[in-house]
């Protein structure tokens, strides 16, 4: 009898001990592991979770919403305290929110934003991400800042910025927003933007190079004051074309500022060589950290206002894009 009592006591003690030591368990569903941006995002999340002493489990949605839904069910059955979801299809987020709401598990969406009415249907649903239009704004600001610092960049001294615009795939949301807001940012900085020419180069270096070659010959490199590309690859293609015309090879007098978006390795190298003015980085590190801190605070019923990131409308954490010039984060 005593023996049984002792054993059950130890058992109960062990149970309570494990329950107390039970750390916060975060279930994170990524739309696809094989994505360079999400790779950085994932690494930032695991590092931050380790710092906070939370346990994070990641699943690979393999770019299939059905697969991801099964993984979410498995996480819920496994007893996770909070979910971080990078939905495969952002418009299919409602069932996920309903599931989490049914079990009263907080859910933090990342990178792909569910519609506001979906997020508003559950008070413990949040979103951490970047505003796409900001990438355009900051690219435009890079140009404007360069012109403020280097008045001679205004080659014809008319106070306007004569630029060439290289766009991504036709109809792509990023292409529309980046094109619009980069030009707007130049305007807001007090310069009048003048579009000399623009073309769709489908995010492609080769196409951008051929188009830029023709533009350079048609307009004359001495008349182009800036090149704005919707991504780094096209910016690099434009730079190859400019180098072909003996521009951007190091001589200050034969230089046209070129900006892109992404901050990929080739762009950083081109900036180090002085061939490219700057680029804009979608800040995966800070998004990952913010998502994990928010999830951790939600799971621990802690103060979500004390995580070091501003929460707007009690729903969103917006991580700004970062300007990158000469290979360094600004």
């Amino acid at each position, binding site marked *: 009898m005593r023996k049984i009592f002792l054993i059950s006591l130890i058992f109960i003690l062990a149970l309570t001990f494990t329950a107390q030591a039970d750390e916060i368990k975060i279930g994170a569903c990524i739309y696809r592991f*094989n*994505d360079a941006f999400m790779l950085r995002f994932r690494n930032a999340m695991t590092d931050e979770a380790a710092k906070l002493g939370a346990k994070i489990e990641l699943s690979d949605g393999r770019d299939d919403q059905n697969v991801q839904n099964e993984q979410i069910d498995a996480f819920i059955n496994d007893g996770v305290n909070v979910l971080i979801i990078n939905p495969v299809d952002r418009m299919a987020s409602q069932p996920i929110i309903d599931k989490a709401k049914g079990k009263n598990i907080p859910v933090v969406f990342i990178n792909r934003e569910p519609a506001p009415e979906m997020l508003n249907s559950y008070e413990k649903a949040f979103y951490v991400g970047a505003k796409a239009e900001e990438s355009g704004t900051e690219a435009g600001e890079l140009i404007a800042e360069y012109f403020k610092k280097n008045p001679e960049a205004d080659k014809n001294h008319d106070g306007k910025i004569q630029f060439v615009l290289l766009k991504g795939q036709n109809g792509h949301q990023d292409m529309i927003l980046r094109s619009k807001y980069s030009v707007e940012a130049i305007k807001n900085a007090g310069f009048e933007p003048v579009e000399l020419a623009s*073309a769709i180069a489908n995010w492609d270096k080769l196409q951008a190079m051929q188009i830029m070659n*023709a533009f350079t010959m048609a307009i004359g490199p001495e008349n182009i004051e800036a090149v704005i590309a919707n991504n*780094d690859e096209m910016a690099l293609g434009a730079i190859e074309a400019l180098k072909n015309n003996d521009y951007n090879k190091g001589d200050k007098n034969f230089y046209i500022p070129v900006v892109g978006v992404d901050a990929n*390795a*080739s762009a*950083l190298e081109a900036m180090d060589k002085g061939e490219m003015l700057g680029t804009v980085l979608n800040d995966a590190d800070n998004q990952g950290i913010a998502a994990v801190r928010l999830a951790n605070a939600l799971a621990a019923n802690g103060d979500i206002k004390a995580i070091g990131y501003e929460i707007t409308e009690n729903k969103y954490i917006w991580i700004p894009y970062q300007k990158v010039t000469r290979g360094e984060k600004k």
Partner: protein
Amino acid sequence: MAENVSKTKKLFTVGGLIVLALGIILYFAKTPLGLARKIYDLPVFLIIIGLGFALKGFMSKAKSDNDLELSSKSFSEFLTNNAILLAMLVLVVVICILQPRFMQIRVALDILTQSSTKLIMALGICFTLLIAGTDLSAGRMVGLASVVSASMLQTATYANRFFPDLPQVQVWLPILIAIAACMVFGALNGFLVAKYDMHPFIATLAVQVIIYGACSLYFDMPPNNSQPIGGIRPDFAQLGQMRLFAGIYKGFPGISILIPIAVVICVIIWFVLNKTVFGKNVYAIGGNREAAVVAGINVFRNIMGIFILASCLYGIAGVLEAARTAGATNNYGNGYELDAIAACVVGGVSLNGGIGKVGGIIMGVLIFTIIQYGLQFINVSPMWQQVIKGVIIAVAVAIDLTKYRRK
């Protein structure tokens, strides 16, 4: 009749000499007249065109039997047969008026440079067209070759290397590997077509999808994870960017190395098509397959040869594109096969097989590139460019088919 013939010769010679003289006068007069910024290098072009016509006039005197004859019937025939060429000439004149900067030597050289890789592709694809087939995998092979070669030719200091521990190998080694990879898939194309008598359209469509998938898998390998390949070694980039005779006189931009490469390949392909048994077999199989079999031509071997040779040329084009842009992604070359087929068709290669010349293909590629470049030059909307491109293809094929029917 004979009088007519000599009149044509005279027309060519005299016309050519007049253009030549005009060119020379303008060349010396443009600076004093203040036209230098208005007509750019027009005089040089006039001199070249004038010389060309004058020489043609002289040459046709030497062999009078295959000379042009001038009559209203032959004239209208001439118009229809060269409708695309004439349309291009009109377009060029319009572009020159709208944007005089088009009349620069460097623009002409740039067009030739852009034509070079396209020409190499078109020469490859023409073999498959000559046997009344096609090759839809050509563009993806360009992508494959560019990714494979670029992935092994990055500088040691680049932050995001594809193979972080790969030593700096000899340049030719990755190039050969890239071309060999294409030839493996070319052999697969040939095998499917020759062994199972599959229509090349379907066989190469299947292979196209396989190549893109395989190339994407390669491109997605860690640590690269689908990042665009950059940090290309300068010695490799030189292969596509070097300029010969640059600065020979003030402002001369130099001749891109791609142009002589394309010329050499043209000569080789011309030789293969016209002077080798393999070339004769290609025409024979394309002209009448049954007859070729009866004549004892090994169709299996020749079809394999055609697709492997074609893929070798796409591989070369891909490597050159990677070198020229100093980079690569798995999306390089997307849709190139259609441009190449269109250029061949415009250049007089019959889709029914058996008809097509290297000279025609060169013309086709040049016409296509000039039109495309010119439209870009005057900043025509990309949507309109597509429409115009489509119209050119339709008109070219229509002309080709009427010619065929007349015969």
